[in-house]
């Protein structure tokens, strides 16, 4: 079904939401398309296309934003070492974590930690999960594309 903006079957969307929920609940885990497609009870090819149409981003990029969000929360709310945060949020190495974190947020994990602490008190009355969601990175383009754009910007006068 190609469909316009409202063209997707709500029953399918509800099952796609289930896959999204599962990534939310365990963003540190591996979520290959095969696993997600099984949660939504659709074929792999159908899953990737439908998820993107429903939620505006491909599933792997959605997962990335959740990992960055969670890492940001841990940077903000805990004293865990950055290596430990990288490990807990699903990255295999500190290097990959640091690079992607910078690509997505424009800042290093250490800088985000320092800034978040400076503004922490103002948000105290809002439920924690909603504060966290509000700070989710808005990753509308691929990380590789974002990286290229930043590189271009630095090159231009």
């Amino acid at each position, binding site marked *: 079904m190609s469909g316009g*903006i*409202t063209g*997707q079957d*709500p*029953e399918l*969307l*509800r099952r*796609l*939401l*289930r896959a*999204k*929920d599962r990534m*939310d*609940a365990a963003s540190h885990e591996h979520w290959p398309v095969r696993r997600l497609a099984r949660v939504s009870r659709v074929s792999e090819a159908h899953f990737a296309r439908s998820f993107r149409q*429903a*939620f505006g981003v491909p599933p792997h990029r959605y997962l990335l934003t959740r990992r960055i969000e969670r890492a940001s929360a841990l940077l903000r709310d805990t004293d865990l070492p950055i290596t430990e945060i990288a490990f807990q949020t699903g990255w295999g190495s500190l290097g990959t974590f640091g690079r992607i974190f910078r690509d997505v947020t424009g800042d290093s994990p250490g800088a985000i930690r320092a800034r978040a602490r400076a503004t922490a008190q103002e948000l105290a009355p809002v*439920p*924690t*999960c*909603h504060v966290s969601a509000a700070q989710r990175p808005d990753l509308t383009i691929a990380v590789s594309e974002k990286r290229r754009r930043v590189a271009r910007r630095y090159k231009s006068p």
Partner: protein
Amino acid sequence: MTQGVQVAGLYVRDQDEALAFYVEKLGFRVHTDVKNGDFRWLTVQHPEQPSFQLGLFVPGPPVLDAATAQTVRALVAKGAMPPLVLVVDDCRAACERMRARGVEFTQEPVDRYGTVDAGFRDPSGNGWKMLQARR
């Protein structure tokens, strides 16, 4: 209380299904269930909160045209509706009880500085936080 919010509503995909969910799985009771042709005004109420009704409404005619209704159904199914918060005395016990009845949890109970919260969805896709406040 004589003034304040009396009804706030949710859009659901099927009122019978929603009614069974909120009554049998969450312990609400029916407050009003009135039909007028295709239109059904259905509200439920938490037994400990008699001043408030939660409306369970289906998007559709005569209130919404077919295309708008389809858009709303898609939004609900995508979990795009605003957050809902249910307050409980014991989040972990409630979670266990509700899970045994088949409620779909999206987040296990988590301790946050003295409060405990979990997340679940109704069959339509409406997302709830279940919050145990600090004592």
